[in-house]
């Protein structure tokens, strides 16, 4: 029972975070500024990478 609840929680957070992360990357790409774009561009690439790392911790914990 506990595993099911944790699984559901995991799924909700996963979907929510995925949605948010893609939304953020979309915003950086869609509403970019003609100048001074370097930093946000780096950020948009940094975001999914770190996010995947965090997910990795998730999955590891889930597997234990």
């Amino acid at each position, binding site marked *: 029972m*506990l595993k099911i609840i*944790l699984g559901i*929680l*995991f799924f909700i*957070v*996963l979907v*929510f*975070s995925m949605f*948010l*992360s893609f*939304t*953020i990357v979309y*915003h*950086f790409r*869609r*509403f*970019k*500024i*003609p*100048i*001074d774009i370097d*930093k*946000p561009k780096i*950020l948009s690439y940094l*975001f999914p990478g*770190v*996010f995947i790392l*965090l*997910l990795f*911790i*998730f999955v590891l*914990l*889930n597997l*234990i």
Partner: protein
Amino acid sequence: MLNLLPNERIYLLKRRHYFLFKIQLLPSILLFLSFLFLTLFFLFWKFEIPQFFTENFPQLSNLKVNVVLSFLCALMLPILWCLIFFEITRYYLTYWVITNQRIIEARLLGFFNVQYSSVSLDKIQDATISIKGILASILKFGSLRIQTASEKGEFILQDIETPEIVKKIIFEAKRDYSTLKT
């Protein structure tokens, strides 16, 4: 996306002061680090369920409480990470651009909620600088209120660095624009 007119050149791009952005980001980062610490702490923590519980509920003896707690803390990490990045997104996508023809304001009010407004330099009537507080005085940031004859009425460049210089640049650009038109 911000589209410039033909022959339009950008003079200045301003955002809120970087210090304010960092201050705003600090609680989320601290919360994120706390949850990261708790996740690791619970993961390596040896927790024994009190004997009273294991005697009354034998199925609890198989439960790894520390892993469950660690998992719950880890669930918070992506949410907080997204919130941190939302703040960064809001900081970068809220800006003011001063060009040789107009002032453009872009505001990210929320996700999928971006507001662009612009005012031609010849419609600018007056500008007021307000620097409130010790921090603002030391770090030289403040708000610049620009009165315009446009529909929007007032343009506020909030918490920008060195508002005096920005005001000077705006009025020089306005003068150049007026001479160019005549």
